[in-house]
């Protein structure tokens, strides 16, 4: 028994270590890790999760502060961020054991940047990310911290100390992503906007790009690796979308337009599905070609403020009214629409033929996408604290047979 446990732990660790590069390579090994906002390749999909049709609460863990950030899962550990205090100035990173929710460690720091946000959001809005060896946690105050999986501090950045006017009085929410050895952050707002490529091992800038001065809550998305192409990341804004070499910050291609500043893209192989005028599919250009080709545009597919989910050749979006739309990626044709119980702030995630969505009232809904018009397979109401008007605003995370959801007060693990 013990040997088996040790073996599985070692195996899980090895899988975890492989995940960083896995996130950015075409031949990604199957992993149970969920290392960033919307999963291993920022598409909302897990290559290995098994979503239970009738989920039940496996365990829950109280959190010391609010947050919209999603949990991430690396091996046997789940990490989540929070913010608390009268001005949300106390920033926390917490680590729990996946199998039973036992608290493993917690670290606290004080915000060095501005902490003002709209009441509905939080300073802990950005989902942390991992490169398989470290976790990188970003808050709305522009504090960025790197820890190893044991909670040892590796490096810190106070980006407002570095660039004093970069903040949004409504709150920032873009989540960081790792691409190769680079942590990419988008710090975009009305006053001072930039994107940084940060050395994952030292926390120092590899590059800094000036970005459009406009509030932007969308997150950078890694482009799937292609032979002969540098590892790249997509940055979108009100002024369009560009692909940037993650190691150098060099712009590889760009397209002017009006991309969403809330909903983030998904990319599969050589196509980018961009929330712009509904959804727009872009063919990733050959190396040296400066502009992508628009493959199709579908105005009727509207991801609203959430981000789309890409499952194989199917694109799923959910709008504010709770309508889940399934479209084929080939031409953007809508195949079915399914009314769910909304409203949603979190984005859909999925694996195989199943999708999980959690509405703001913490009603978890499992959808069978193989049904001709889609169907709700099961629901689970997570309990909320009515006295505090608690909400569930995060995007769920998937790992193995488990679904992780964070509400204002609690981290929930849901399973069969």
């Amino acid at each position, binding site marked *: 028994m013990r040997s088996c446990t040790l073996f599985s732990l070692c195996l899980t660790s090895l899988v975890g270590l492989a995940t960083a590069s896995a996130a950015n390579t075409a031949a990604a090994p199957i992993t149970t890790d969920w290392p960033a906002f919307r999963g291993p390749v920022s598409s909302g999909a897990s290559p290995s999760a098994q979503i239970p049709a009738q989920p039940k609460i496996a365990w829950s863990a109280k959190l010391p502060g609010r947050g919209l950030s999603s949990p991430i899962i690396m091996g046997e550990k789940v990490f989540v961020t929070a913010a608390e205090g*009268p001005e949300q100035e106390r920033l926390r990173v917490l680590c729990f054991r996946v199998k039973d929710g036992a608290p493993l460690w917690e670290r606290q720091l004080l915000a060095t940047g501005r902490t003002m946000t709209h009441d509905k959001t939080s300073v802990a809005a950005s989902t942390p990310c991992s490169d398989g060896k470290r976790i990188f946690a970003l808050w709305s105050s522009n504090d960025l911290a790197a820890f190893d999986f044991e909670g040892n501090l590796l490096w810190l950045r106070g980006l407002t100390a570095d660039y004093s006017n970069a*903040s949004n009085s409504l709150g920032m929410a873009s989540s960081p992503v790792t691409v190769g050895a680079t942590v990419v952050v988008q710090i975009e707002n*009305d006053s001072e906007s930039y994107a940084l490529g940060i050395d994952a091992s*030292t926390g120092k*800038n590899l590059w800094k790009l000036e970005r459009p001065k406009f509030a932007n809550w969308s997150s950078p998305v890694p482009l799937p690796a292609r032979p002969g192409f540098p590892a790249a990341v997509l940055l979108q804004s009100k002024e369009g979308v560009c692909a940037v070499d993650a190691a150098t910050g060099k712009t590889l291609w760009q397209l002017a337009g009006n991309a969403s500043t809330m909903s983030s893209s998904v990319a599969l192989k050589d196509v980018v599905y961009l929330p712009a005028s509904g959804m727009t599919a872009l063919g990733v250009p050959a190396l040296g070609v400066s502009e992508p080709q628009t493959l199709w545009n579908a105005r009727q597919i509207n991801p609203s403020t959430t981000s789309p989910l890409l499952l194989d050749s199917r694109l799923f979006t959910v709008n504010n009214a709770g309508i889940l739309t399934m479209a084929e990626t080939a031409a953007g044709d809508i195949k079915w629409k399914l009314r769910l119980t909304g409203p949603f702030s979190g984005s859909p995630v999925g694996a195989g033929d199943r999708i999980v969505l959690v509405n703001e009232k913490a009603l978890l809904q499992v959808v069978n996408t193989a049904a001709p018009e889609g169907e709700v397979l099961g629901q689970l109401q997570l309990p909320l604290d009515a006295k505090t008007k608690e909400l569930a605003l995060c995007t769920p995370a998937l790992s193995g047979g488990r679904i992780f959801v964070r509400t204002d007060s609690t981290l929930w693990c849901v399973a069969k």
Partner: protein
Amino acid sequence: MKVPQLLSVLLGMAVAPVFAGPLEDAVQTLTHVGREGAGNEAASRAWTQVVAAGPKGLVLLLAHSGSGSNVADNWVRLAGNAIVAQALEAKQPLPLDAVEAFLTNTAHPEAARLLAFDLLQQADAGRAEKLERTFGNDPVQKLRRGAVAFLLTAAESKSGDEAKKAYQEALAVARDEDQTKTVSEALKKLGVAVDIPKHFGFLTQWQVIGPFDNTKGAGFQTAFPPETEVALDKSYPGKSGPVKWQPTASKDEYGKLNLNEPLTPLKEATAYAVTTFESGEAREAELRLGCKNAWKVWLNGELLFARDEYHRGQRMDQYRLKGRLRKGSNTILVKCCQNEQTESWTVEWEFQLRVCDGTGTALLSSVSKR
């Protein structure tokens, strides 16, 4: 004076010689991180070393907290946080007497005392809570909050004159907006008026001039005449004709100066407001601003900060600008720009500004000249 001797003096206790040497060097390394990640690699190695040294490094960490940047303070804070967590898990003794002695010495920097309190709370929440009740007059605004909360709880259980006295005691030490509001509302119900503008030190008497142009936001970067001279008797070309200074007073309880009133509701417009603050002494001060329009603030001709964000939100003390008051007259100039948006939530063209010390205690102008 080296830190070990300094600590001995401050704490009135013998400090182990282990503080000198590599451990102190490591702690100092944490405080030397600079901008854009400078010093991160060395700090990372030092952090591991400091945490491995365990509880004996705690007071040394406190002694160095506040000596570097606020990012450096987080390196120190996270080391202390990890040391306490590990010691609690290993059931190791912690030097809580020394931490408490450090905390209660108000001569230490704010960051260091906040860290001391948080470490004490992490290690022994009951002990921290007991101490927190004594912080009503503490120079650190964040430490006061807990003490005010205790006073408010106590006042709630009283009635009549006893309640008045209890709430007035809470008001005397309250510095946060929410707590002050709670106190003032309770006192109002008891028939006691509270002068909120005076409590917070809001500046309410201004001279205002405008509109100047701000088409496509260009006015924010344009230096209109008030940025080079403040001559209250002069007139200048404005956006739609000559403009001149006019006296304007805020009647808002929280000092909001509504520029739509003297200048009428406008779009793509720039206004300036100026006032004189009479200080009885030369001293450091904070100008705390709340504003949802683009703004610049000058103190005696020195630009303190500028920010061109529009209609994302406003709150009291949204921006804390540090400046030095001179003895006598100080000129405070505010530039406030309105943009082109026409939604109902973009009508506001206003700001609120107060002068206070680092605790949030109002500094009051001895004379209002404008």
